[in-house]
């Protein structure tokens, strides 16, 4: 006996529209902010991979920093919500070292910038560096407590 086709619900239709909307939003974002390469030959920087976690009390920024001199790590708050991390590499890396011969340039540092979307107190940041991964913890500014009546 053949199975009766399931009637499409309103939720199915809504889901389809939402997926289409997501795809469209992705396309718009890509055309508005075209992706650049993960390197910059003018500043001799390679872009580091990084992450931002926001909790109710603090903001934790991590960055993968392989092949760097730990004592050269710099963490700067460009403004209240933009964090920049830079570090010098143990030795310069050329495109040729990465197997690329159709480009020229060499890189001496890793760098990343992360927008944290909430204000942080950069003066109270705590930094740790383990296994080539940097972790920076910033307390959040302006915490409000609402009293429960």
């Amino acid at each position, binding site marked *: 006996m053949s199975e009766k086709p399931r009637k499409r619900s309103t939720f199915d239709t809504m889901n389809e529209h939402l997926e289409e909307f997501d795809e469209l939003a992705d396309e718009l974002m890509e055309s508005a902010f075209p992706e650049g390469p993960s390197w910059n030959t003018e500043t001799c920087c390679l872009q*580091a*991979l990084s992450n931002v976690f926001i909790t109710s009390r603090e903001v934790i920024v991590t960055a*993968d920093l392989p092949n760097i001199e730990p004592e050269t790590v710099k963490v700067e708050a460009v403004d209240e919500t933009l964090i920049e991390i830079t570090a010098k590499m143990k030795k310069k890396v050329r495109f040729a070292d990465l*197997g690329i011969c159709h480009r020229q340039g060499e890189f001496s540092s890793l760098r990343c910038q992360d927008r944290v979307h909430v204000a942080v107190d950069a003066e109270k940041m705590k930094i740790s560096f*383990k*296994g080539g991964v940097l972790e920076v913890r910033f307390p959040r500014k302006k915490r409000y407590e609402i009293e429960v009546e």
Partner: protein
Amino acid sequence: MSESVKIVEKKHVPSEATMIVGLPDVGLVGLIATSYLISELNLEEIAYLDSDLLPPVVVLHKGLPHAPLRIYGNQNLIAVISELAVPAPAIYPIMREIVEWGQAKKVKRIVSMGGIPVESRQAIKEPQVFGAASNQELLDMLSKSGLNIMNEGYMVGPQALSMRYSINKNVPAIAILAQSFYNYPDPQAAAIALKELSKISDVKVDVSKLLEKGEEIRLKARDIMKRTQEEMTRMKKSQEYDLPLYV
């Protein structure tokens, strides 16, 4: 056979081989481990995947074009890798085709290599490895070999589909998953996963070179990791952090 994906064979494909699948995923653990196996065991390219669902990309190696999704092998081993972050919608037909092709080639078993994301990975000196299997017999074998069993939890992505389609097709399947960074390439986790693989199979490699080249791999893998992260978001990979409800 899936119509949207086809596997094009270039050379003789062995039967009764173990098939290792290492597609880009959490920490690129599977991809790094499988690529290292291919290079250490000098496996030859025996086939590639062709599909209009993949972006129009070829990878040049020594000046010659290659498909980004390739299959390598020798008499006992088949290894599947992708040098491209597999687009989330394409992962279904691709994994279905890989499993069906493996069944047609009478593979002994399919082993998916991958990572389990852990939040405090940088605090872990030696990541643990967990296993899952498509049937009780295989699970007992993993357990007897000393592998930790992933008793409860969600798997999302290539390993999940490898398991799902293998059960459908009655192909024995295993997943070997090492604790790893979510979106940072993790060669150490890959090395540890390979060590565990050697305990449950005759695939044995010395991982010291992989550990030595760890920093270089992390630098080289930044771009594919970034693109893989975008696809992981699309396939809701973060569900692996969820606790399943089974009363």
